[in-house]
């Protein structure tokens, strides 16, 4: 059920909040063995919350997301639920507070269903780096759902929940959305509060949303967006009513195409689908213009310097002192730190901490970190110039469709190259959305990405929605909640 259906059925008395919660819980429990999407399913909490909403029937319908079940990535704090971030070092960690996005979702009437599996500390593009096992793609369970927010993407794709939260540092919302055939939004840097999100790359991280359609994504972002005094990086910028912008109007809109990103390394089916989407926009009245992003080809290199440098600093807090696991029987403090981190972190997290420590180490700072920040500035400039000529840029979201579990685990660099289309938005701080735009010959979903100037989420939602109306994505995964269409 999408949000509109839930609203209609509640209004018509066919369902109450408890029935909505029971349905979602049943689906989550039934499919979890197959998909591994949830690390914790909060049956008691979800039913108690539904009871509150049913008891408050007078006030509830006015809430934007009344009785909507939501799944939350495990690196976002929900009081009373675990927050392992997919890491063994935070096994059994129960945060004592709610993230701001959770407070806002609760105020809007949602039911938090549980916490979803993810790559450890959001580091990965396949969800295979979780300490708690992989997530499987609902379209083909031999394949990855993408990452790092793989559990949230799979839960929405399998229609267990209509919306879910993820975090996107280099594509961790858009890439799994694309691989799972759903909508994923990464907002402008500073749009959504990160208070209560486990930090990975602080100049890159944004919380984003997954939904089965653009309207639900727009509604969810309207609820969580906006300045938060508890996150100094949130900007004082008014949040528009995104849903009211979904007019379908494309006359006069300008879509930019960076042709150099449609070359080598791009799967033929993905290329054909995105090129077809460009033709759909043309048919809807948009003007298609060529744009250049000459520094985009350096984005992965820039990203893996900046993201790992920031991660090595952010992850220094996991030391076995204040929360999380601690290695037993260490004789000294230093030994305790090292053994705790050796036992608690997985291989990809160690690799990134090592790389980040290296690029920041004495004598190397200018050569790597400073150099990367300069190229980042050049990339930002590329986008600023491109957005003088167009309202949004279209690219594939990912170079290929979902790959097989284990296919890329031995080659970290090959795995990183999955993010080639998505990391640019995080580096430039701009918003991006991934929208399903077809199926491959192997029956796997393909996503296209729209990128916009800072704070242009309204435009991205309008363009995405116009496409969705013109080319509805009716295909469904093979693993899905019972009774869902």
């Amino acid at each position: 059920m999408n949000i509109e259906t839930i609203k209609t059925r509640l209004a018509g008395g066919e369902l109450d909040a408890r029935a909505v919660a029971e349905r979602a819980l049943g689906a989550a429990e039934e499919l979890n063995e197959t998909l591994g999407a949830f690390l914790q399913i909060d049956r008691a909490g979800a039913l108690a919350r539904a009871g509150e909403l049913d008891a408050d029937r007078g006030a509830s319908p006015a809430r934007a997301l009344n009785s909507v079940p939501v799944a939350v990535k495990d690196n976002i704090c929900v009081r009373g639920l675990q927050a392992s971030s997919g890491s063994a070092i935070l096994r059994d960690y129960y945060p004592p507070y709610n993230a701001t996005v959770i407070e806002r979702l609760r105020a809007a009437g949602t039911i938090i269903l549980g916490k979803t599996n993810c790559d450890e500390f959001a580091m990965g593009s396949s969800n295979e780096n979780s300490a708690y096992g992989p997530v499987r793609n609902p379209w083909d369970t031999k394949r990855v759902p993408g990452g790092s927010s793989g559990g949230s993407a799979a839960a929405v794709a399998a229609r267990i929940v209509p919306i879910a939260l993820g975090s996107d540092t280099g594509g961790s919302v858009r890439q799994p959305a694309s691989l799972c055939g759903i909508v994923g939004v990464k907002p402008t840097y500073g749009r959504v509060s990160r208070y209560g999100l486990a930090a990975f790359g602080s100049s890159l991280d944004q919380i984003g949303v997954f939904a089965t359609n653009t309207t639900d994504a727009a509604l969810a972002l309207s609820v969580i967006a906006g300045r938060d005094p508890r996150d100094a990086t949130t900007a004082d910028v008014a949040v528009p009513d995104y849903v009211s912008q979904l007019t379908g109007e494309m006359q006069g809109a300008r879509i930019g195409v960076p042709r150099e990103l449609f070359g080598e390394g791009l799967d033929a089916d993905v290329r054909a689908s995105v090129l077809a989407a460009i033709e759909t926009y043309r048919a809807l009245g948009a003007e298609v213009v060529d744009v250049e992003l000459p520094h985009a080809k350096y984005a992965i290199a820039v990203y893996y310097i900046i993201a790992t440098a920031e991660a090595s600093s952010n992850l220094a807090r996991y030391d076995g002192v204040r929360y999380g696991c601690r290695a037993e029987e260490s004789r000294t403090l230093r030994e305790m730190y090292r053994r705790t981190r050796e036992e608690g972190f997985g291989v990809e997290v160690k690799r990134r901490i090592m790389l980040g420590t290296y690029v920041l180490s004495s004598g190397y700072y200018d050569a790597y970190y400073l150099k990367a920040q300069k190229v980042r500035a050049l990339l930002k400039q590329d986008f600023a110039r491109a957005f003088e000529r167009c309202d949004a840029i279209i690219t594939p979201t990912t170079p290929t469709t979902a790959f097989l579990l284990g296919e890329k685990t031995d080659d970290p660099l090959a795995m990183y190259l999955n993010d080639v289309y998505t990391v640019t938005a995080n580096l430039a701080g701009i918003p991006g959305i991934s929208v399903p735009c077809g199926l491959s010959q192997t029956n796997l979903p393909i996503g296209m990405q729209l990128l916009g100037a800072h704070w242009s989420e309204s435009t991205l939602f309008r363009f995405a929605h116009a496409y969705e109306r013109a080319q509805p994505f009716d295909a469904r995964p093979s693993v899905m909640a019972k009774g869902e269409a």
Partner: protein
Amino acid sequence: MPITESDIEKIAALAQLELTDEERRALTPQIASIVNYVEQLNELDTSAAEPALGGLTGEGARTDAAREDAPLPSLGQTLALDQAPDPAAGHFRVPKVL
């Protein structure tokens, strides 16, 4: 300059990681290959570029993020210690420092 196992050992010490021999052997060529990849940035002339440190958006940079300097309620001792691996008498207990 090629990255050696002894470089990896030094970096691990800086990062407070205690790698096994196997991990060190596996990580050395991987880190070397990633470093080699990121060094493609050297082909770019960035002498005229200002590094993008902070201020990703103009609006973010203009937002006054400082709040009034006034005491607010905090977690409190009980809750702050609630998740500690080894709390003792209102403190976080750790092994000896020296």
